[in-house]
Each structure stands twice: as structure tokens, then as C-alpha cells.
């Protein structure tokens, strides 16, 4: 299938911008306010560059260079007892600064501390996989690729995880429309019937409350059936319901409410 290339540069114009919205920020505290985190930060600073570090909601956030991500996480796992990668993904900041933010949320069971490693990469840049350190990164990195298009190097199975393999576009980017682009709108029609069926089947009906009362190509009113394609804009004949038991069919009797027995006493 031909790749869908939008004619307008959608990345330049996010579909939603609020000029007066200022995102509320949770207060950031200095790392020196927590002894455990201070030690951890010193250990990171001894080997790698740290761009920024602070404590937010009792969790330390360390912002590093994207090239150091494997080294920092390996060190935190092996030397600083952060033995769980509970979550990782990307955040789309392409409209603001042209970059993706990658975050790794880590947990130390023994220290009872949570720590977040963040780094930023450009749109076409790739990042090193941490799947060798944490198996949980396997599917997370695939999902990150699926949803944002961030390619992860040295991943054992870099493939889409949720969307179909032949999908075009990355749905969690801010510029991706919620109801899908042209490719998404025609995906199932193109795949099953071919592109030439687009005109016959027609565009998606995005208004679920709409019912075409006079469409006899696809709909048949029960009790008012007419041959397919008949024009019923001037009304249709009434087809009375015929019950098979009303004509005395073998073995089937019509239920007679008069003869039925209602059991009101359940303990009978």
C-alpha cells in the first residue's frame, strides 16, 4: 500500500493550542533534602553528566543526556539497588521544542524509593534499548515505537505491538487526529475490499446517532421489508408478522397465557 504523506506539515500546527493555558506545576524541591537520593545523585554524577535533578512528590527526577541512558540505568540497577523498571514511555514535546522526552520510572524495593530518569531526543533520533537490563522494557519500548515512532536500537523484536503491522502514523503523537487520518479512515475498506471500493462503501459515519431510515440497501425494517434498493421515501407496505405456530405447525403450539400457571409460592 502506498504510504500516506500529508500535504500540509501537520507537525507545525498542533490541532489544539490554548494560548492562555499555563500548565500547573508540582513544586520541585532540592535533592539535598533527602539523604538517600543525595547519595544516588552523587553516584550518577561521578560517572555521567546530569543536566538537572530535583525531587517532585517524594520522587527524584534526574535529567541526563540521551546517550547515557543505558549506562545510568545499568549503574542504578547493579550498584544502587533500583531493581525494578515499573514504567517507561515517551512524551511528545514536538510542538514546543521539537523533541521527545523519554522517561524511565524505577523502583527500589529495599530502599523504598522511586526515581525517574528523563532524557530528550530529537524526532528522528533513536535511543538505546534497556531490554537487556529489564525485561519489562521489551513491550514498553515496542509500545513507545508503536505510539510515538521512537526507534529503539538493539531491541530484540522492534515491531508494532498494538496497531497492525501495516499501519501508517503514530497515534499518540499530539498531531495525530483523534479520529484518524485518511489512512486510518479507510484502513479496513482498503485492506478487505481494495481501494476501488472506497466510493461504493462511502466515508465513515462519525455520528453514531444518525440512522438512515430510507436506506434499503443496507437496512430492512422488521415487519416492513421491501426488495433491496426499493425507494421507500413515500412509505412502504406493512408486512404483518407471521408466527409459525399460528398456522398449526407440527409439534409447535402457540403459548396460551390463559392456560399457564403462575407459581407464586416459591417454597411450594
Amino acid at each position, binding site marked *: 500500500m502506498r504510504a500516506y504523506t500529508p500535504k500540509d506539515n501537520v507537525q507545525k500546527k498542533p490541532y489544539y493550542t490554548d494560548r492562555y493555558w499555563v500548565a500547573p506545576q508540582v513544586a520541585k524541591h532540592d535533592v539535598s533534602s533527602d539523604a538517600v537520593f543525595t547519595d544516588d545523585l552523587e553516584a550518577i554524577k561521578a560517572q555521567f553528566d546530569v543536566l538537572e535533578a530535583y525531587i517532585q512528590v517524594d520522587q527524584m527526577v534526574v535529567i541526563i543526556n540521551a546517550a547515557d541512558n543505558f549506562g545510568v540505568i545499568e549503574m542504578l540497577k547493579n550498584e544502587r539497588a533500583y531493581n525494578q523498571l515499573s514504567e517507561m514511555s515517551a512524551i511528545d514535546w514536538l510542538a514546543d521544542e521539537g523533541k521527545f522526552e523519554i522517561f524511565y520510572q524505577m523502583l527500589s524495593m529495599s530502599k523504598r524509593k522511586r526515581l525517574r530518569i528523563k532524557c530528550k531526543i530529537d524526532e528522528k533520533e533513536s535511543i538505546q534499548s534497556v531490554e537487556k537490563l529489564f525485561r519489562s522494557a521489551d513491550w514498553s519500548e515496542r509500545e513507545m515505537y508503536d505510539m510515538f515512532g521512537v526507534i529503539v536500537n538493539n531491541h530484540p523484536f522492534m515491531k508494532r505491538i498494538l*496497531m*497492525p503491522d501495516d499501519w501508517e502514523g503514530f*497515534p499518540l503523537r499530539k498531531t*495525530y*487526529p*483523534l*479520529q*484518524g*487520518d485518511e489512512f*486510518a479512515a479507510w*484502513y*479496513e*475498506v482498503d*485492506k*478487505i*475490499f481494495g481501494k476501488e*471500493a472506497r466510493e*461504493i*462503501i462511502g466515508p*465513515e*459515519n*462519525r455520528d*453514531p446517532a444518525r440512522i438512515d431510515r430510507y436506506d434499503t440497501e*443496507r437496512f*430492512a425494517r*422488521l415487519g416492513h*421489508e421491501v426488495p433491496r434498493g426499493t425507494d421507500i421515501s413515500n412509505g412502504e407496505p406493512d*408486512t404483518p*408478522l*407471521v*408466527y*409459525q405456530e399460528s*398456522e398449526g*405447525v*407440527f409439534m409447535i403450539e402457540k403459548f396460551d397465557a390463559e392456560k399457564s400457571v403462575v407459581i407464586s409460592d416459591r417454597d411450594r
Partner: protein
Amino acid sequence: MAQHQVNYLKDGGLPVALTTIDKVVNWGRSNSLWALTYGLACCGIEMMASGASRYDFDRFGTIFRASPRQAELMVVAGTLTKKHAEFIRRLYDQMAEPKWVISMGSCANTGGMFNTYATVQGVDRVIPVDLYLPGCAPRPETLQYGVLMLQQKIRRESASRAQKPKRLM
């Protein structure tokens, strides 16, 4: 040796029922609608409840089958994603004629509340539908009523093999 003594004029009449071929065939078809198990989302739970002992689909002759070759009714119960659309079409094509489709619930009818890039906006974009059941999710009574309405629809159809296959386009 006991003698076979039945007075047909007295004991309930002759053991003969007169009818038409159409009616006999449709009687058989409509009272043994074997449905494909096709629970895609939460509507599937209601469909299972309809089949289980409290609502008991078996008494209408509707038995769930796990193979499209043995089924003639497809109850699309739940949200159809775009990824799954080709498989529902393949399973529909594998079912033997004559076959019927019930679209169960808002998601299968119109995409429902999932007005997004990943959801097919109504299964009738992919397969022809005979009956739409409203509800989110429809109660088992609704599904049973729907199957009974479908039975009536089948009884009104011609049983001849020359009937046109249903097509989307």
C-alpha cells in the same frame, strides 16, 4: 404377537402434516440457529449469559459453535477494531450459506462511544448485517428477542437455494 391397532380416524387423526417445502426448511433453519462464538468485548459477557442456564439459548435451538463451518449465525458482540476487521470478514466468508449476522450493542452498530482512529464505525462497513440490537450492553433478554425476531425474518424468506447472497457492495 400383538396386533397393531390404531384407529387413525379416532386417535388424533392421521400422522400426516401437510405444509410447503419452504415452511419445512425454514422451520428447521430458524429453530436450529447455531451461532458462532464471537464475543469481542463486554457484550460478549451478555452473550455468554444468554447461552448459560439462566437464560438458556438452547431451548430456542441456538447453540454456540466455535467453528465458522458449523455456524450460520454470527452475533458480533462488542467493539470491532480496525486491526480485527479483516479477521471478522474472513470468518464471515468461511461460514456456509445461508448465514445471518446480528450486530449486538452500540459498538458493533456504529462504533459507539469509541469515536477514534482504531475502531471500525459499525460492522456493516465490513459485513452485511441482518439485525441491529441497541444497548450498551444489551441485556440477554434483548439478544433473545433479537434471535426470535431473526427467526421470524428467516421464516418469511424463501428457502430456495436461488436466493441472492447478501452483499455489501
